[in-house]
């Protein structure tokens, strides 16, 4: 995709907020406030001339009902020039990556030179909705003058009571009703991923993330959030340096009685945001920035949610590799979103399976084994946390930095998402 004469969009840098346990320290910051924090810090760190910004593409999953175009709200709240247009995209857990690739598209088409892309989500601020039955029943009262008869009519429509109580929001598939964790539990069963292997994977994720924090590796990527009350949230609070397989083994399964998924080997509900600064290569040079990376390819796919909900990356990642003209062995780094350890391990099994490649990808050889040393080198969502809309932008940021840090060529990204969606992308180093 990086042919001569073609415009190329480059990643200049990225910043994220600390990823914080839901209903914790960032309770008072909604998704717009989190996005503001990430974008504000990004502009500050990279000293971006605000007049140069063409637009913002933002990703989110739990969008505020009254202001769903989160991107534009961020622009207005940060007092960026009114000319900075913005739109908001949603593709479940791949929303952050979607925002980034959409922005790349705009730049590479020549529609823009400087874009900010990212995503945020505040699980703590999910809206509790009145059931539609109540809304519809109340309509005569809300519009025009209601007679006592109308009121009685409304009352009579509101029984039985349990149908009008607001429902607790949950991460369930609309079509199948299956909760995400149940889907991952099913994948663990279908792909024969034992509990111990999941726990070991989770522990490795925590240890690697903890090491990155300790060494200061995340410092350039994480910027604090200032809260309205003057408090400042500095650091990720989900990573556990001291966890161990023995500790995780004590946790009880949460999604099935005799299941294998626990709070320890699943990604936690998280509040946070991440933002990436993207420019056309010429513009970056003109403005004096050193680009980190560019996208060689990407792929978004869909599978049947009733089959194996989170298997999408097993199809999207090989497709992205194909489009980049590479094989799995060529990828120096692999970064996969860890919705659940079981889901990552299932996808790894699929990639390594010749039978899977033959039937699902129509190729005669397995995609290949992923070397654990190259996979999620600084941990993943199980340890760091997973604010749905932000994860994709976090991964792009970390991998863009890592390519430069290690002086290697390419990184393969993979993200699973609700609705049976999957995403894959290949980042290449720009030097």
């Amino acid at each position, binding site marked *: 995709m990086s042919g001569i004469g073609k415009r190329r969009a480059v990643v200049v840098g990225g910043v994220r907020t600390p990823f914080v346990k839901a209903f914790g320290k960032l309770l008072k910051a909604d998704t717009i406030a989190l996005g503001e924090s990430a974008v504000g810090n990004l502009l500050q760190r990279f000293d971006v001339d605000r007049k140069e910004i063409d637009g913002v593409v933002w990703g989110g999953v739990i969008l505020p009902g009254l202001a769903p175009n989160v991107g534009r709200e961020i622009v207005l709240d940060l007092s960026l020039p009114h000319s900075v247009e913005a739109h908001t995209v949603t593709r479940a857990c791949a929303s952050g990556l979607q925002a980034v690739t959409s922005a790349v598209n705009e730049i590479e088409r020549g529609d823009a030179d400087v874009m900010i892309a990212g995503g945020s989500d505040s699980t703590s601020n999910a809206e509790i909705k009145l059931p539609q039955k109540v809304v519809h029943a109340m309509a005569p009262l809300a519009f025009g003058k209601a007679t006592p008869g109308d009121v009685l009519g409304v009352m009579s429509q509101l029984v039985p009571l349990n149908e009008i109580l607001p429902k607790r929001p949950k991460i369930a598939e609309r079509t199948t009703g299956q909760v995400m964790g149940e889907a991952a539990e099913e994948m663990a069963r*279908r792909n024969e991923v034992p509990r111990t292997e999941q726990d070991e994977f989770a522990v490795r994720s925590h240890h690697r993330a903890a090491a990155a924090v300790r060494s200061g590796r995340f410092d350039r990527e994480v910027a604090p959030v200032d809260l309205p009350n003057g408090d400042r949230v500095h650091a990720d609070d989900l990573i556990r340096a001291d966890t161990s397989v023995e500790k995780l083994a004590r946790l009880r399964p949460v999604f099935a009685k005799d299941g294998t998924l626990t709070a320890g080997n699943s990604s936690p509900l998280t509040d946070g945001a991440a933002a990436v600064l993207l420019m056309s290569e010429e513009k970056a040079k003109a403005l004096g920035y050193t680009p980190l990376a560019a996208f060689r390819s990407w792929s978004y796919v869909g599978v049947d949610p*009733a*089959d194996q909900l989170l298997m999408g990356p097993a199809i999207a990642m090989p497709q992205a590799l194909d489009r980049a003209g590479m094989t799995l062995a060529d990828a120096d780094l692999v970064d996969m979103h860890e919705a659940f350890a079981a889901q990552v391990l299932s996808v790894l099994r699929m990639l390594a*399976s*010749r039978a*899977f490649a033959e*039937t699902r990808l129509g190729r005669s050889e397995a995609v290949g084994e992923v070397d654990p040393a190259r996979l999620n080198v600084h941990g993943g969502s199980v340890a760091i946390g997973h604010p749905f809309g932000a994860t994709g932008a976090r991964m792009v940021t970390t991998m863009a930095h890592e390519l430069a840090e290690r002086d290697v060529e390419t990184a393969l990204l993979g993200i699973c998402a609700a609705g049976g969606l999957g995403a894959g992308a290949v980042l290449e180093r720009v030097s």
Partner: protein
Amino acid sequence: MSDFLLELGKNPNARKMIKQLGLPVPMPQDLARAGGPWEERPLAEQQAVVGVGPNAALQGYVAETLARAGADPWLVGEGHDGALWKAPGEAYGRPAKPLASPVPDRFLANALVFDGSGLESPADLKRVYEFFHPLVGRLARCGRAVVLARPHRAAESPAAAATQRALEGFVRSLAKEIGRRGATAHVVYVDEGAEGRVPALLRYLLSERSAFVSGQPFHVTMEAAKGGGTDEEVPYTRPLEKKVALVTGAARGIGAATARLLAAEGAHVVCLDRPQDDGPLSQVAREIDGAVLLQDVSAPDAPERIANELREKHGGVDVVVHNAGVTRDKTLAKMSEERWGQTIDINLAAVIRIDEALTDGRVLHDGGRIVCLSSVAGIAGNMGQTNYAASKAGIIGYVEALAPTLAGRGITVNAVAPGFIETRLTNAIPVMIREVGRRLSNLGQGGLPRDIGDLVVFLASPGSQGLTGRIVRACGGAFIGA
């Protein structure tokens, strides 16, 4: 058209009470039927238990079929080839697991599949007993039992032939024993070399779309060749995409149900019926975005008109369903010549005339399908139906003889023989006779028009290439004519 006992049986309390009182009332099981068009994984979340005999040659196809259709395979006994089970399990995330012995409490199987293709001597039949004996009580309501076998005529020794033929008797009896639970049993005889044509049939038999087919032998062959003998990938969803189907007698009943089901799988359906049925016929056609062809099939110019219409407006036809038929019942002594002549002409002679026009002019495409409607009455005969039974038995002979002549073009010719189906026709039968017709079958109930339609759709689909010149009964295992 409602079946009182079936409705009563749907009420768990009534069911329990009748059982406890020990009343001699049959409580037919409400049959599970599929909704919507064919699915990628019709067996999702179903538990399929698989056993094999010695030298089981078909287990790889079973493994592939189950995993791809979404079933969880459980293996019992010995003789399973691990490698054959591993690959599909991995590819579709349906790993085959050994089923503990004795069978764990509360385990229910939705399907029992036994590969008996390698059974060679009567002593080998013990393997069949060993597999089914502990599991038959664990077959879920509306479950399925399928035995795979080799045609006995091709067996290498008389003993092997006897062994393979024995499986048919076993399955027919098993179907009677499990029928009250809405479950069915079948045997599939597979020619050497025709193994690749098994999965589509197996998938159909294990699915809810074969609900009213019970106790049948199937023969899978390479007779109807297509693409030089190598079959291309069979589509499992929207199998009739881009196909044109002609359904005669499509205004109501089985014809209308069939037209709807064909359309649901992607076919463009030309709905044919008599001019006086314009109203209901147009309604069906509108509903499924099909075409209307008003034509009396017995008219002298019907074959030519139908052929011309199909050629000119639809570019030919891929599926022909001869559903139009009449009954003109009278005992022979009282039967007028007109009743006799009409029945034979519409039910049999017209079918032959129309097919001639469609095949001679190559209006029926290569790889096409002809599905005729026969009847259990045509197999067993029926009081007051000398004319009807003659016409429907004639269809059997016709199908058997026509199939080889079209096999070279990849066209299959089959007949469906419905048993008691709940339609306008059968609703007019006096109540006592009707009750006998309904209950004297494995499943203890009548079928619905869509049950015939489901079978016709399968026979019309690319996956049925292995079946030709066959009469498939959709009769709920009617006791007559077996």
